[in-house]
């Protein structure tokens, strides 16, 4: 029963890459530590006071030595920097077509909703072999979504979205931790990530009943909050239509200039909560702010709805 692991399970596509770099660093570190320790031990033994040994003509200084021991750490440092930066850069954005999952953190639980509609608390069910993208926000303080077996972590902030993605490679049950100190029950704010065979995952989603999807819930909210009144064809108020907007470039009027921003989750969120900050060119800044009127999970549902109509033609 000798079980003494030195690393957590490798259960995502990035995990082996991170581990390889880590092993390289451990190897280099061991090499230099042993080199330094052995030299010190050798010197302290060999040149101990009273030892009968040649001490003549010591080296007082040496530019060659100094440059060598500046150069070697620099070169190894640069190798590690580029290696780590490349991994970080390449894996920063989720691949297109990743499964969308929304995460709302609050003291001290994780509320998670899948785009098909099923919601869960402190558990995250995901299918094997499919990229999953989490869009996350917090209702109170900063939290951090951390799955050691996937080697991924991202802080979850109040007032904005951060995202995290991974592709599970191994069926199993893995720790989910909150990694940013968030108050009293910080250490209890965790749970499990359950990686399932895709068929099991489908079954699991269906078990939740045939409730509405996030987008359908979002559409209901869209009507409830009277968004539809202006953004859906009522001609009394001149407001931009939202079909086909998500993910596209939107012209923004700023004084006399027009610049373009991508209509992503952050833009939609800001447009709902602070509509006057980024007004689409050609429209009057008439929309009232919905700050404090829509809960975080509902905001994510409305965004899911707006995303769901991204493929439709923008009616003129």
């Amino acid at each position, binding site marked *: 029963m000798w079980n003494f692991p*030195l*690393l*957590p399970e490798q259960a995502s596509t990035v995990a082996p890459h991170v581990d390889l*770099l*880590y092993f390289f*660093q*451990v190897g280099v*570190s061991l090499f*230099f530590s042993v080199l*330094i*320790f052995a030299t*010190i031990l050798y*010197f*302290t033994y060999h*040149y*101990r*006071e*009273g030892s009968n040994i040649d*001490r003549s003509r*010591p*080296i007082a*200084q*040496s530019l060659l030595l*100094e440059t060598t*021991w*500046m150069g*070697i750490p620099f070169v190894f*440092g*640069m190798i*590690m*920097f580029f290696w*780590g*930066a490349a*991994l*970080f850069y390449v*894996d*920063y954005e989720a691949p297109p077509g990743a499964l969308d999952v929304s995460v709302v953190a609050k*003291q001290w639980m994780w509320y998670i909703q899948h785009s098909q509609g099923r919601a869960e608390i402190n558990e995250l069910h995901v299918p094997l072999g499919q990229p999953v993208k989490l869009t996350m926000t917090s209702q109170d*303080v*900063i939290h*951090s979504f951390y799955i*050691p077996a996937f080697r*991924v*972590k*991202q802080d979850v*902030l*109040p*007032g*904005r979205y*951060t995202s995290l993605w991974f592709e599970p490679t191994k069926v199993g049950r893995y*720790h989910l931790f909150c*990694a*940013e*100190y*968030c*108050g*009293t029950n*910080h*250490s*209890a704010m965790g749970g499990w990530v359950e990686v399932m065979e895709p068929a099991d995952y489908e079954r699991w989603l269906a078990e939740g009943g045939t409730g509405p999807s996030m987008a359908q819930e979002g559409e209901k909210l869209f009507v409830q909050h009277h968004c539809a009144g202006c953004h859906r064809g009522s001609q009394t108020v001149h407001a931009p239509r939202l079909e086909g907007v998500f993910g596209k470039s939107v012209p923004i009027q700023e004084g006399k200039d027009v610049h373009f921003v991508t209509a992503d989750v952050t833009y939609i969120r800001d447009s709902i909560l602070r509509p006057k900050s980024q007004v689409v060119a050609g429209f009057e800044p008439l929309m009232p702010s919905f700050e404090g009127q829509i809960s975080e999970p509902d905001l994510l549902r409305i965004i899911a709805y707006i995303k769901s109509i991204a493929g439709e033609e923008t009616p003129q």
Partner: protein
Amino acid sequence: MSTTVLDQTAAAGHKPPKPHRETYLDAWTVKSWLLTTDHKRIGILYLISITVFFLIGGVAATTMRLELMTPKGDLLSSPDAYNRMFTLHGVAMIFFFLVPSIPATLGNFLLPLMIGARDLAFPIINLMSWYMYMIGGSIAIAIILFGGIDTGWTFYTPFSTMFSNTLVVPAAFAVFFAGFSSIFTGFNFIVTVHTMRAPGMTWFRLPLFIWAHYATSLIMILGTPVLAIAVMLIAVERLLRVGIFDPALGGDPILFQHLFWFYSHPAVYIMVLPGMGVISEIVPCFSRRPIFGYRFIAYSSIALAILGFIVWGHHLFVSGQSMYAGLVFSFLSFLVAVPSAIKVFNWTATMHKGAIRFDTPMLYAIGFIGLFTVGGLTGIMLSTLAVDVHLHDTYFVVAHFHYVMVGGAVLAYLGGLHFWWPKITGRMYPEMFGKLSALAVFIGFNFTFFPQFILGYLGMPRRYFEYAPEFQVLNVMSTAGASVLAFGYGLPLIYFLWSLRKPPSAPANPWQATGLEWQTESPPPTHNFEFTPKVEKAPYSYSPVAVEGFDGYGDHGSH
């Protein structure tokens, strides 16, 4: 002087009374201590005060390690109690022990002596520095008595400003005052080094201890004001509900992290640079060799001070800061490896062809080099973007910074305290117990913190009251190691005090060291030197062959 001067040589008993020699320790009234402007006495005031905070922080650490023996919370009554404990540990150890540790005690005591000056440039400001520290420290102790705080020493917003129900505003003021004490000290050191060096003490004859303190002082005066601003903004948001950091009020929570780490990363160098200065004094003395690569070590201190200011963003790789900022900060962080490597390799090379003695200070210094090396190398892993994503906010980080701050700063502090104890107090410490403490600290430290590297890579987050059961074995190892470490710390506390029972008898220069501070008596007279010393050669002019007959710069304080 005061009327209650104690003639210490007469108090020695039956020996023929030596003619009394005036020392800085002569006056013993409360007033003579509380209103002193003598840098040496202020150093002692600081030594006593920071020891109190070291003990407070140590009790908190012991409680945490005992709690973490089991995965479930059982020793402490609630998670809140644990959260207050680690906050207390961090605040006491960082702001009230490590930041002032070497500069305010050894630095205060030695800086004028080492450059051949009578005092610091501004003795009253030096005393004010201690009072600032004491105001901050008193607030901190009041906070403990009235319930503590639970934000962690990092005070992350908006938790600290809008959610914590503990004494955050008083804590902000405690840190604010402690910060001003280090601004005063830093400012004083810089002016003193510029204007009060003895004749012949050129910049490149300065001991490396002075170079290190000069670099530290630059950080203190440039970085600490930013910390002061950051904690005051916390107070403003908390008290007046002005939206600075909380998004619900229109603020930005990441802004606080930038402000905080703009000070607190350089603060790491405030903690470790003076330690490097101590090691640069001890290693040549006990190797009987001039230090290898003097200028490289001197410049590397300045390089660390500068680089320290441009790497703060490596604490924010997963915070939501821009990916491109992450790339730049990661790159800059790797540059820190170069000046750190310069120091380690030069200290090691200094031992080459030396005649090495293994007195307690040297044992601590060798321990420092080993532990700082491990701390530095693991820091490189944390600078690496993809690896840090996994390691950030885990026990790996806890282990890393303890290797730098305890393995580095505290070992250097203890080594320096042993080295200069005869100078400061005029007493020798018991060498056997000294060696035992160095050994116990080194072994205990490694047993405490090495398992935490593994815990971190396994994924155990920091600041956890309860943890997953599979992490228990390593946590028990860590706690077991901590008990050895505590023993190692406890020894010097006892024998240093014990050594004070007898009158001063230490020679002026027990280690046959070359620094100016060893030219004057132990303990030094109030005005440091009988004559203004003249410096005629480079520092560290040790020779391994002349070990037997070495009489340094006048073993008996004569010139």
